């Protein structure tokens, strides 16, 4: 099984320096792109590879790049922004990639910037990833020294400046347009679309915007070709995927596997199954803002389409495993508290609705719930949907809640009627 993303990552996650990375075949993809391919040919290869965004939305990467205006008349400068604000709870895949193989990301950035002819690139890194930040800084310096960044890279005439921007630390900055606003020094509040960032992005200029893991795939696609990339996968979506598992499993962690492995394979083969005495009760498959799946769904494939058909989302692909001794209400209360706190405060349903649901859940958890609270929670899941809110944060917050009420409404009723948590 090929693991292009993690092949260089050592057991202790210590990063490869530039000479080590080059020795392992690094920057060959860059060389090929800049010396043998035109920018739109690079985009075409990525499109053919069926690479879908790994940030959670799963939009075709090649298609996204094709929206950036090209040619001499295009507004300039153009930007490439990398979303390294990995704050989706339960997610730690980008951290692994940045800490363990920073040059893989940098090489992908340069190729991607070349494809859309961006002259300036930013990595927007969440504040808490201190180690990743240090390692990226070092790698960027090495890349400049070697001439992979700066003017006239590899004699191609292509120039790129890459900056590492460390954020002040808010979940909403993981939202594409809120990140752009934060990068501009404004309040981290999302933007309305249209206009879309490929046309009107950072500082009003055309901006390509991708997740860390997405970009890490790019050098391999260029070097080994789209067909190879598609063949890594079990499903039409191309490539491998970094999957993860946390919760009371024997071996929590992250593993690079073919796109489309089942939940069961990740849980039982790689995470070692549940700890002694525990059964799996529910799964949040792609980070906490995805719908819960239950033990009945273990054979569903972890890819974009299969997850959607099962009533959830692939999201980030790092699952949170909930055992049968963990209180669902307590879990939801914890999650909703997080979402309510991370609301940016711009639009009414998120700002007020998440706070309200959070307080209801706390009350239920503390044995002060009322039966009508369940109807209020359900009403919120109906009112807070995409299009009703300004961005996807609140609808994402509703996903675990609506699925918890679908599969585990009894938990809620018991808490309310017994006025205590029945799991303790």
């Amino acid at each position, binding site marked *: 099984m090929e693991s292009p993303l993690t092949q260089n990552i050592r057991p202790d996650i210590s990063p490869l320096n530039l000479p080590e990375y080059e020795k392992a075949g690094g920057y060959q993809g860059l060389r090929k792109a800049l010396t043998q391919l035109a920018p739109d040919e690079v985009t075409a290869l990525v499109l053919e590879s069926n690479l879908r965004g790994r940030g959670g939305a799963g939009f075709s990467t090649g298609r996204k790049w094709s929206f950036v205006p090209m040619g001499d008349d295009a507004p300039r400068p153009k930007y490439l922004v990398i979303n390294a604000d990995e704050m989706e709870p339960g997610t730690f895949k980008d951290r692994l990639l940045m800490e363990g193989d920073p040059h893989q990301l940098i090489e992908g950035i340069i190729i991607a910037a070349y494809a859309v002819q961006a002259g300036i690139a930013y990595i927007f890194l969440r504040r808490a990833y201190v180690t990743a930040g240090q390692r990226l800084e070092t790698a960027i310096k090495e890349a400049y020294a070697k001439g992979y960044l700066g003017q006239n890279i590899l004699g191609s005439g292509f120039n790129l400046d890459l900056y590492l921007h460390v954020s002040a630390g808010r979940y909403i900055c993981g939202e594409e347009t809120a990140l752009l606003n934060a990068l501009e020094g404004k309040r981290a509040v999302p933007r309305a679309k*249209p206009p879309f960032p490929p046309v*009107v992005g950072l500082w009003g200029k055309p901006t390509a915007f991708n997740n860390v893991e997405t970009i890490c795939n790019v050098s391999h696609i260029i070097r080994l070709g789209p067909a190879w990339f598609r063949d890594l996968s079990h499903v039409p979506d191309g490539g491998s995927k970094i999957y993860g598992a946390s919760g009371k499993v024997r071996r929590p962690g992250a593993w690079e596997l073919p796109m489309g492995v089942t939940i069961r394979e990740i849980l039982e083969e790689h995470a070692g199954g549940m700890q002694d005495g525990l059964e799996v009760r529910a799964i949040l498959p792609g980070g906490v803002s995805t719908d819960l799946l239950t033990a009945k769904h273990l054979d569903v494939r972890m890819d974009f389409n299969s997850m959607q058909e099962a009533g959830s989302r692939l999201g980030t692909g790092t699952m949170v495993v909930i055992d049968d001794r963990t209180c669902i209400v307590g879990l939801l209360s914890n999650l909703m508290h997080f979402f309510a706190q991370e609301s940016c405060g711009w639009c009414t349903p998120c*700002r007020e609705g998440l706070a309200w649901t959070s307080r209801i859940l706390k009350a239920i958890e503390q044995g002060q719930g009322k039966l009508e609270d369940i109807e209020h929670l359900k009403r919120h899941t109906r009112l807070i949907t995409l299009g009703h809110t300004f961005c996807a944060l609140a609808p994402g917050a509703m996903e675990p809640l609506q699925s918890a009420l679908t599969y585990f409404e009894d938990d809620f009723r018991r808490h309310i009627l017994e006025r205590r948590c029945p799991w303790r």
Partner: protein
Amino acid sequence: MVTIYIEGEAYTVKEGQNLLQACLSLGFDLPYFCWHPALGSVGACRQCAVKRFKDEKDLRGELVMACMTPAGDGTRISINDAEAAKFRAGVIEWLMINHPHDCPICDEGGECHLQDMTVMTGHNYRHYRFPKRTHHNQDLGPFLNHEMNRCIQCYRCVRFYHDYAGGSDLNALASHDHVYFGRFENGPLESEFSGNLVEICPTGVFTDKSLKAHFTRKWDLQTAPSVCVHCGLGCNTIPGERYGKLRRVRNRYHHQVNGYFLCDRGRYGYEFVNSTQRIRHPLQRTAGEAIPIPMTEKEVLDLAGTILADPGKVIGIGSPRASLESNFALRTLVGPDRFYAGLSDSDFSCLATGCNILQKGPVPASTLQGVGLADAAFILGEDVTQTAPLMALNLRRMRYRKSARIASGFQLPEWNDAAVREIAQLQKPALFIATPYPTRLDEEALRTFYAAPDDLARLGFAVLSALDPEAFPMPDLKDSLRVLADEIAQALLDAKRPLVITGTACSHPALIEAAANVAWCLGRKARAAAFALCVPECNSLGLSLMGGHDLNSAFQAVREGRVDTVIILENDLYRRADTETVDAMLRNARHVIVIDHQQTATAAKAHVVLPAATFAEATSTLINNEGRAQRGYAVMPAEGQIRAGWRWLRKLMNAAGHIGARSWFRLEDLAADLVKDMPVFQPIVGLDPKVDLPTPGGKIPRQSHRYTGRTAMHADIDVSEPKPPADEDAPLAFTMEGYDGPPPPELISRIWAPGWNSEQALNKFQSEINGPLRGGDTGRRLIEPAASDDGRYFAMTPPAALSGEDEYLLVPIHHIFGSEALSMASPGIAQRAPRPYLALSPENAPAKENERVRLRVNGRSLDLPVKLLPGMPVRMAGLPVGLPGLAKLALPAAVKILGTEKNKKE
């Protein structure tokens, strides 16, 4: 025009709107909060949700926010759709989670947009049972109260204050349900337009602090359409009165003048009407007595008969802050030959120059709205933020409009506020500001230039030379000046709507001529150029057009004994000329009659003082800086002996046997004589809406149908309800009764519609959102460009002699709070006004900040603390205009600094 479908019915609407604008323009009631006609859409509150269908077959549809959705051809929506209605009610319920039950004690109650929208959505029951979040409030100065618990986070306040008005000290802070709108620390909000928050905020977070001092509910106010009297722009207002006291001033929309906003001086400067310094009775001061004694009307008329018996020895001094009617009455009484304009020398020449330019030149006077539409503007000399504040607000809009033009190339409409701001990053517009000292507006300018008034004029001539080198060669021009002039000229030529702005602030007629040259040259080059002249007072232009000799001649006439009696109308001469000269005149004239409403230094020396009505008590006509005649209607009846100036003058004339005023029973009668005598004022005939109203007396009520207390108010005097006071001068009545249908636009006395109790009801009065009021723009312009153009330009006057080595050129510095007399009677405005100071450049300053210096100017000595003003040219100094404690000086003038505090001590 495009077709949209609402509930299946087809409607034709203007292209380029969003669905919310279209629905409101069509008269539908769709609730909203964060959208504002002037601020555009951001889509934050989610209140305006409607159901949109893909086509006729689509029965499911999806919710969209009307304010963010273009009303494109073929759009199909339903407002009444059950899911949309439920969602909108849900939004209110969400907002009510944290909203306190303050209505009974909240100032906004009765004109609260949140109340209105809550009722509109049908929401009535709160299911939330947890605590509400609360905030600390801040002391934001004398104009605004701050009650953050009431906030519904619509973000309108910061979008107006920061984005639209350019203020920096009010911001959105914190996040999630703790979002807070406030200042970095307690203290007065710095923007000159902060008072608009009162009308921008849809709840009671920001309310009028001056109103709170004498609070009254909106429905209990008696209101009328009026015009601001605190500068020359003539913004339209709606003042409100109860129990004989003016309670507050609100905006009255005028598409061509002020639009939606007022400045803080106009909004809060009204307390002079209620002031204890009001003259309320006729007073007589006999020789040697300090305290005047009240006179009866009979005594006044008897005295008038005697004093005015010999008309040849009576002169009248008119006023730029008195109405056209009162000035004309005075002129009629004394005769045109003995009528003097009560203006300072420099104002007299500047205004005469300005009128001449407007009347003879090929370029029209710009409307205030037109200022905001300019795509290139050249300000020569005027600190507009201080002298014509709302003009500065409109100039700040140039940045946005420039970005909007770029955005339209990306199919992004002007109402999409965030996208417009993002796409061009609000690049600086082609705004060029040349003033004697740095101004607040400089942050908007592409280029600024600070120099003495003569050098500013020189720049103006340089721009003319750059525009048309043949018409005006300037071979000896300094390179740096030439480069700047070339840039300005090119920007003005490239623009579709170039604008030249100047005014009387520098007290320099040559500067105004230089500005006119530039405007005329652009007009002659077939550009749609406009010329904006800033004038200091609400009727400066009216007085100047009326003619009248200069004040110096009046002083001379008295000095030479050719005059016995001086009648001074609503004017404090000590603000027009130096102390000694005015002292002499008031001492030497045998009889000084002052007609005024404020106790001024002049009134204190008068033999007879007659109580004049303020704008609030008498209907009057004023001419604003663009030459627009506007009529402001009395809000309350004049009490006791108080009368409009012209009515006192009529009484004097009748008593003296002068037949000129015999027919003036009503304002209209005087107006008829006025236009006959001076055809330039002919258009004011059109100010009177000739309307036949169907109900009692054919009048429009000044009081709402919910006005309370009518029978109890005077019950302590007489238990029988009195007849409402008559008003012969207006088609309005001091009562609740009358015609309650939509009035003609000039008679709109309150902004209210069923279900719309707040100022947002304005959308029912506009023919379309952001358009003129239904019935058209009010007021009448007196001056349009001349039919023929001789193609000439004003000649350049030689520069002033260089001042001596240790001399500075002292120029006037204007202050929005402080330089205007009437508004200073408002405690809040007096609090914000600076104390006298001398402004100097920090480079080579002879003293440190706040150190006192002694100076000599115009032959007199002054002692003032220093204020260092970075950017002030080195050989110049600045003196604030009009502050209490500072005598009038003829500026610009040479000033010598004699010594500093330090020197004095040694």
